[in-house]
C-alpha cells in the first residue's frame, strides 16, 4: 500500500518536471539504514554518475561501516587553542562545504574573556584581530559534540539522522526533508542548513568521500561534523586534528585504554560543554597546563 502511494506521488512529482530514470530512483530510494548491500551499490553507482555529470569528476563514495569495539572521542586543549581558525577552513575543504551563499562551516570558534569560560552569552565568533591570540581572551572551537544522547536525533521526524555504532552522529542527506527540527534541538549549534544550492569551486572538490559524510550535498538538507567519517574509519586523523598548528586537537578510541583520548580524560582537567543537559557529549575540552 505504502509502495503504491509512493509510486503515485512519484508519478505526480515526475509528471510536473522533466524527469529521468535517475530522478525516479532517487525519489524512491530507501533510508540508508534499510538498504540491502545490493541497493547500496546501486545508489552509490547512481550517485557517482550524477557527480560525474555535475562536476566532471570521478568520486569514490565509501559506505564503510563502523568497526566493532570502537567509540570515537575527541579532545580539545583549551590551554593551547589560539583561535586561528585553521581547523575551520581545513574542515570546509575536506568536507566539501558550500563556500559562499550559503557559507557553511561545521566548526565555530568562539572567543571568550579569560575568566568567563562558562558564560557563553559573552562569546564572540566574528573576532578579527591582526594576530591571535589576543591578550585577555581564550578561544573555544565548537562543533558537533557527537552526543551519546543526541537531542537532534530524537527530534528528527523521519529518522534521517542517527548515531552510528562507533558513536558518530550522521545524516542521510537523501532522506532529510529539511524541516530543521534537529537544528533547533541542538544545544551546540552543531548543524547547518543548505538554504540554497551549495557553491564549491570544482577544482577544490574532495572526491574521496563517504555516503554519510563529505559527499556533496544538495539544497534543502542539513549537514554537520562527522568526525571526518571518511578518514577515521580508515585509521586517519580528522582533518581538523591535522590542520591545527598548536596541537590543540586530540582524537581516538574511547574504548581503547591506551589511546590519547583516554589518557587525557584520566589525567587532565576535563569538562564537557553543557553537561547539565544530559546530552553526554563525546567531545572533551581539557586543560593541559
Amino acid at each position, binding site marked *: 500500500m505504502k509502495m503504491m502511494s509512493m509510486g503515485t506521488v512519484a508519478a505526480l512529482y515526475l509528471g510536473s518536471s522533466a524527469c529521468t530514470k535517475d530522478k525516479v530512483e532517487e525519489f524512491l530510494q530507501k533510508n540508508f539504514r534499510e538498504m540491502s548491500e545490493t541497493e547500496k551499490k546501486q545508489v552509490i553507482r547512481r550517485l557517482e554518475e550524477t557527480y560525474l555529470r555535475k562536476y566532471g569528476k570521478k568520486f569514490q563514495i565509501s559506505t564503510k561501516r563502523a568497526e566493532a569495539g570502537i567509540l570515537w572521542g575527541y579532545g580539545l*586543549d583549551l590551554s593551547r587553542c*589560539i*583561535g*586561528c*581558525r*585553521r581547523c*575551520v*577552513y581545513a574542515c570546509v575543504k575536506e568536507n566539501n562545504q558550500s563556500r*559562499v*551563499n*550559503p*557559507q557553511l*562551516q561545521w566548526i*565555530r570558534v568562539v572567543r571568550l574573556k579569560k575568566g568567563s569560560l562558562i558564560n557563553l552569552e559573552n562569546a564572540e*565568533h*566574528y*573576532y*578579527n*584581530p*591582526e*594576530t*591571535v*591570540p589576543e591578550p585577555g581572551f581564550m578561544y573555544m572551537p565548537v562543533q558537533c559534540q557527537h552526543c551519546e544522547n543526541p537531542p537532534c536525533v530524537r527530534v528528527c521526524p523521519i529518522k534521517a539522522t542517527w548515531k552510528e555504532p562507533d558513536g558518530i552522529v550522521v545524516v542521510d542527506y537523501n532522506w532529510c526533508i529539511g524541516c530543521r527540527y534537529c537544528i533547533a534541538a541542538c544545544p551546540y549549534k552543531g548543524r547547518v542548513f543548505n*538554504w540554497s544550492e551549495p557553491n564549491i569551486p570544482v577544482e577544490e572538490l574532495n572526491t574521496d568521500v563517504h555516503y554519510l559524510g563529505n559527499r556533496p550535498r544538495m539544497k534543502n538538507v542539513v549537514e554537520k561534523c562527522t568526525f571526518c567519517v571518511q578518514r577515521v574509519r580508515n*585509521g*586517519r*586523523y580528522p582533518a581538523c*586534528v*591535522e590542520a*591545527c*598548528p*598548536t*596541537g590543540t586537537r*586530540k*582524537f*581516538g578510541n574511547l574504548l581503547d585504554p591506551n589511546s*590519547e583520548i583516554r*589518557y*587525557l580524560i584520566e*589525567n*587532565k582537567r576535563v569538562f564537557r560543554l553543557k553537561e547539565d543537559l544530559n546530552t553526554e557529549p563525546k567531545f572533551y575540552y581539557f586543560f*593541559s597546563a
Partner: protein
Amino acid sequence: MKIRFLCLFAIIAIGMPAFALHHDEYPVLMPPLSEGIFPCSNCHAGLEVNAKKRELKEEHTNIKLHHAENNRWCLDCHNPANRDQLKLANGETINFTESHLLCGQCHGNIYRDWKVGIHGKRIGNFKGGKKVYFLCVNCHNPHDPKFKPLKPEPPPIRPERSHGR
C-alpha cells in the same frame, strides 16, 4: 648510528620535503634545519672550538638566542666534538632527530605529555599505517621557543550580509 646519519644526509641532499624518518621509538618529522646548513661538520670540522659566549658576527647571524639566554650558550646543546650531533647534559650525544630528549631535560612535564600524544601534534594514520610525531622543534624554534602569534583566518560572514542579496 652511521646508517641513520647517512640516511639523514641523503634526505637533505635530495631536497625531499620533511618527512618521516625511521626512528626506533618515535617516528618523527625531519627537524627544520635551515636549508644548506647540514651537515654542520662541512664547516665546523676544520674550525677550532670556541666556547666563549660572544656575539656571532660572521655566521649564524639570524640566530637570536631567546631561551634562558643568561644561562646558556651554543655548546650547552650542540656537541663541540661533532657538530652534526647534539649533546645532553650528562654528556651523551644524540642525533638531531632525537632532539626531544634534549628538550625533555628541562621541560619534563611537557615531555611526559608529548610522549603520550597530549602535548604536540601527530599526523597520518593513528591505526594501521604510518603515524608521524612532530618534534618539539617542528613547532618551537629552539633558539626562541615561544609560539609566535598568527594571523587568523577570516571570520564567518554575518548572516545579515549573506542573506541580504
